[in-house]
């Protein structure tokens, strides 16, 4: 058995890597400007840069020695003058898409002071001038890379002649080509660092730990009560198979499944809390506040669970061994509750264990609507306020839990079904 567990654990690894990569793709590759999404519109470039710096977002994606910097963001002069409009002695020509720095000018185009390190300008220029301590002199268009340290001059200076610029790029030089976003992310995860919440100004791991108890207090009751009720009702369906009771329950199940989760919450809050005054509407003061959300959580899940468990039971009931049992003189209840149930439990266990990860994400909606300060509440809040690190952490942890739950399911399967070969 131990070898089986080990083997399954090893098989988990590619999926774990896949999950990490997928979150990387989603949060590092897909968005154009994550900092802008997270911090919004009214922020300085320096604040954006700090955001990037903290999360390694200014590094190359996978591999490389050049990192971007917001002190001078990539800007295609064909699109316009951009920030260069601020300097009167840098004349922009839309027709040629060039910038002409007038003679006798000293312009530092950096938006904020650079942190220590080695940097590099890549300039396509024509004319004469000085850039970050290096003399530029070319009669015709030329592209040159100019390196400089943060100490000292970083900008342009012209003397007697103008300097035309067609393209300009700033990069920080990193010593380690493997110092990339991907690597940074992996290192973060190894350390257990899940990022920093801009909204709460706290490390994400702390927020998660704080939120777990509340979520569990909601989802564990939903899980347990839900499973018990669903299995019981599906047993009823199987026992009264194809009679009125069975068909009625199936119709109810489909109807329950078709009601949108929102409606359950809205109707529940309105009818039971507000109108009837049976439960408090919002908050997390005592266990009473959990009753309504738990009730809603259970009822909303009943539909699909009953249908699934019922199908499983009925599939079993049509098997040959059931006929043998009847032929032995076993009574119908015993056939159902002893013979069929034990077989049916095998697929049911899968279904049940797989639901465990959802215990953790809490119900995003339930917590949000009922003001329960768990991980679901945290999640919705993070989505609405674009608190990237929190969202990413929740997604990552949720996925990893799912992978672990799969492993547990396999183990349960091996324990419950004597036919599983423990190879």
């Amino acid at each position: 058995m131990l070898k089986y567990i080990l083997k399954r654990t090893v098989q988990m690894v590619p999926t774990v890597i896949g999950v990490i990569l997928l979150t990387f793709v989603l949060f590092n590759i897909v968005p154009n400007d994550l900092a802008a999404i997270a911090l919004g519109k009214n922020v300085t470039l320096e604040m954006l840069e700090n955001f990037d710096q903290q999360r390694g977002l200014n590094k190359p994606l996978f591999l490389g020695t050049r990192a971007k910097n917001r002190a001078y963001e990539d800007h295609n002069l064909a699109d316009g003058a951009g920030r260069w409009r601020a300097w009167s002695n840098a004349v922009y020509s839309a027709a040629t898409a060039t910038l002409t720095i007038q003679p006798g000018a000293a312009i530092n185009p950096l938006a904020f002071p650079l942190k220590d390190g080695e940097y590099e300008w890549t300039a396509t220029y024509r004319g004469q001038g000085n850039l970050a301590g290096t003399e530029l002199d070319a009669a015709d268009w030329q592209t040159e890379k100019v390196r400089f340290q943060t100490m000292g001059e970083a900008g342009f200076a012209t003397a007697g002649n103008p300097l035309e610029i067609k393209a300009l790029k700033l990069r920080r030089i990193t010593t380690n080509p493997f110092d990339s976003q991907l690597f940074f992310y992996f290192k973060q995860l190894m350390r257990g660092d899940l990022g920093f919440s801009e909204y709460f100004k706290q490390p994400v791991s702390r927020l998660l730990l704080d939120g777990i108890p509340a979520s569990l207090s909601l989802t564990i009751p939903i899980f347990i009560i839900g499973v018990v009720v669903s299995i019981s009702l599906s047993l009823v369906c199987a026992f009264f198979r194809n009679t009125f009771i069975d068909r009625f329950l199936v119709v109810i199940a489909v109807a329950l499944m078709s009601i949108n989760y929102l409606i359950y919450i809205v109707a529940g809050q309105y009818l039971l809390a507000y109108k009837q005054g049976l439960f408090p509407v919002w908050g997390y003061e005592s266990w009473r506040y959990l009753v309504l959300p738990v009730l809603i959580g259970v009822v909303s899940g009943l539909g699909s669970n009953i249908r699934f468990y019922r199908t499983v039971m009925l599939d079993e009931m049509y098997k040959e061994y059931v006929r043998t049992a009847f032929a032995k003189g076993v009574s119908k209840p015993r056939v159902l509750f002893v013979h069929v149930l034990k077989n049916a439990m095998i697929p049911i266990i899968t279904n049940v264990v797989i639901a465990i990860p959802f215990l953790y994400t809490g119900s995003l909606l339930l917590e949000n609507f009922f003001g329960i300060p768990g991980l679901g509440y945290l999640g919705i809040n993070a989505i609405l306020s674009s608190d990237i690190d929190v969202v990413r952490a929740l997604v990552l942890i949720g996925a990893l839990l799912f992978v672990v739950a799969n492993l547990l399911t396999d183990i349960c399967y091996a324990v419950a079904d004597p036919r599983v070969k423990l190879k």
Partner: protein
Amino acid sequence: MIKQGQSLWSDAWRRLKKDRIAMVCLGLVVLFTLLAVYGEVVYFYHHAKDITPAYQKINLDLAYQAPGAAHWMGTDGLGRDVMQRLVQGVRIAYKVGIITSLIAIPIGVLLGCLAGFYGGKVDDFVVWLYSTFASMPGLLFILAIAMVVPENGLLGVYLGIGLTTWVGLCRLVRGEVLKHKEQTYVQAAKALGLGSGRIMFKHILPNILHVIIVTFTLRFPAAVGTEVIMSYLGIGVQGEPSWGLMIDSARMRLWQGMWWEMTFVTLALFLLVLAFNLLGDALRDALDPRLDD
């Protein structure tokens, strides 16, 4: 091959016709589809002519009217006719259902076919890929996608739902292809020297079409439901009367005693989802080639 396919469809139709509930659902689906088309026409007309459509016109004098002769389903807080907005909601729901399927179905079918047919490393890769996607926590993942996708608005919603729906279909298709691959008609085709691509698309694909149709019918309402939640939360559609938005604005009014907007939107959503769900179930039974009459 084609003859066999035809008799499967007529067989299935025959079985479906016998199921009265399924027929009712089919009727509802047709009705909703017509409403969606009508809604699209109305939208397009007003959009092209740059007029404000009736369902957007704010008229505070008419606000909060209970259902009556002029407005069968009453008016909302800004005096807009609830029924007309409801119809527009159908249109948006259909857009979501169809576009997300247009994303999910090609991906799921293509990957499923490749995995099932070629096996080996290709299969390993596809299984790894969909296992990874399947591990993602549902709604949260969709919301995250909507959050990071560059353009705001419905694109994020479509991608989010589409990129999570393909997984189930891929699994199913892969399973079916694996089953069919071993069957004699494929061996026969191979023996005749037909190329892989041809076998896959002309022979196997028609036989897994029923899986695709059933999946579409069952995922459609799920997509609609998810979008309703998302627009309720304020993500995705702005301005246009998605049912989610209507529920949001109806919620507070409910507590003030104005029941009609919430009731009718709830009913419409429920009926749409129920009809598709039941129809999908019935289709699944009718199209199952193994079920004897």
